[in-house]
């Protein structure tokens, strides 16, 4: 069972998926305007992040977009030192889950020095390397 066991190399399989975002496209349009949106069901009032075009609670397709205030409290975090192949060169990076003032939780990178559970953080829309995303920063930072 050593490393010198004979083997045959398979044909290469290259997998890239085109992920449809038609139903929640407004999320990215709003990121461009500096706003992070969640969805709220007009039928049962369930607030949802990540946004969902159909309410997971009552299946109503009648949802509205609401802007998150950006105010969150850290519920947990980790600092990733060993990154996957597609993030090589990015490590270390800190991932935070924060509970937003509106009640939903958001997972995103945290850009700041110190981090602890219970700490207040700010969620910001961001453009990075030409693509739209969102980040947590320390509460007293207003962002770019």
């Amino acid at each position, binding site marked *: 069972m050593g490393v010198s066991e004979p083997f045959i190399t398979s044909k290469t399989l290259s997998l890239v998926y085109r992920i449809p975002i038609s139903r929640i496209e407004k999320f990215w349009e709003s990121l461009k305007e500096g706003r992070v949106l969640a969805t709220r069901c007009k039928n049962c009032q369930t607030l949802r992040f*990540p946004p969902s075009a159909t309410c997971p609670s009552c299946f109503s397709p009648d949802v509205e977009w609401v802007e998150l205030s950006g105010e969150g409290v850290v519920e*947990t975090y980790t600092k990733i030192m060993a990154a996957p192949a597609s993030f090589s060169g990015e490590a270390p990076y800190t991932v935070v889950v924060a509970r937003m003032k509106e009640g939903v939780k*958001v997972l995103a990178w945290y850009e700041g020095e110190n981090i602890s*559970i219970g700490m207040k953080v700010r969620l910001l829309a961001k453009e990075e390397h030409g693509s739209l*995303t969102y980040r947590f920063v320390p509460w007293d930072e207003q962002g770019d």
Partner: protein
Amino acid sequence: MKEVAVIGVGQTKFGKRRDASLSELAVDALKDALEDSEAEKREIKFLSVGNFGLSSEDITPAALVAEQAGLQGTTTMRCEAACASGSAAFYAAWLAVSSGIFDIAVALGVEKMTEVETPTMIEILGRAGSYFWEFHEFGVTFPAYYALYATAHMNKFGTREEDLALVAVKNHKYGARNPLAQFQNEITVEDVLSSRMIAWPLKLYDCCPISDGAAAVVLASKEKVKELGVDTPVWIKGIGVSSDTSTMGNRANFIGLRSSIEAAQLAYKMAKVEAKEIEVAEVHDCFTIAEILAYEDLGFCKKGEGAKLIREGETEIGGRIPVNVDGGLKAKGHPLGATGVSMIVELTKQLREEVEPSRQVPLKKYLALAHNVGGTGQYCYVTVLGR
């Protein structure tokens, strides 16, 4: 609902198995399980195959395994529930027999993880969550998902990195006594604490390895057990299955796995037993924190007291509830699809008092529990076994 027993078990050695393909490993385990049982191959009409996939060349392994085992024509399927794929196959086989449709069924779990490069495997495992919202944007690795739980547990209950290390030390101790384990070396707390940081606070030695391996069990109805004259049937007394969100952000809290708590309650209820009656357990220690969470979620101790349990040696042989005395995922290895079935193999041998004497748990009630988590608690399967 018919009563169902495990009447045969088989498992390959776990580890880097560059000597065998997926179907070859699968057939090795299947052959051992059949030889261990009183059943004949021609009686097998149901074969469920637990396999996570992507890391080996065949993406439809069930029919391939059936063919290699000369079982074409049998009712077969691949079962997937991430790291609990083996338990999903076991559950399918249990349903097949308990429903009365089949009187014998085989559950087989198999995974080949070392045919791809390690960074590719890390990439695949990181996608075992919510790809779009958590991996694609933020590169959350699989250890990082559990690190989110470790951070919260340490913050709330004062669990220390040294406590997590004790889990790895214990599981290596028993892995060293198990010839089928991937790692057969003992380690120290210092080895764990000084190992490379992967996702704070989890270090390399807090993580289970990447493994190849296969395991198989033969199940039979009570009538069939009588007909075959099985010596020591091991009865499936209760099974509970539950699930939770794929998106970590949508979890209620990070101090326990909801799916574990619910699956355990369902299994205890069906088996009509309490947590304190269990005498030996296999729990899902893909990361050291996961074993601490399992102690609490399964009711072996109160929430927040998991670290105390490992510190006081209560989960070693001689303690209140010996856990993972085959090395666990940490030292035995974690070939994803094989793990859930391997837990049943180990507990069946424990209940028959057939394991190596140095790791045989002394039994009075002959009650054992298997706990297999898929993903970071997206799926959980709990099984209570007894004589």
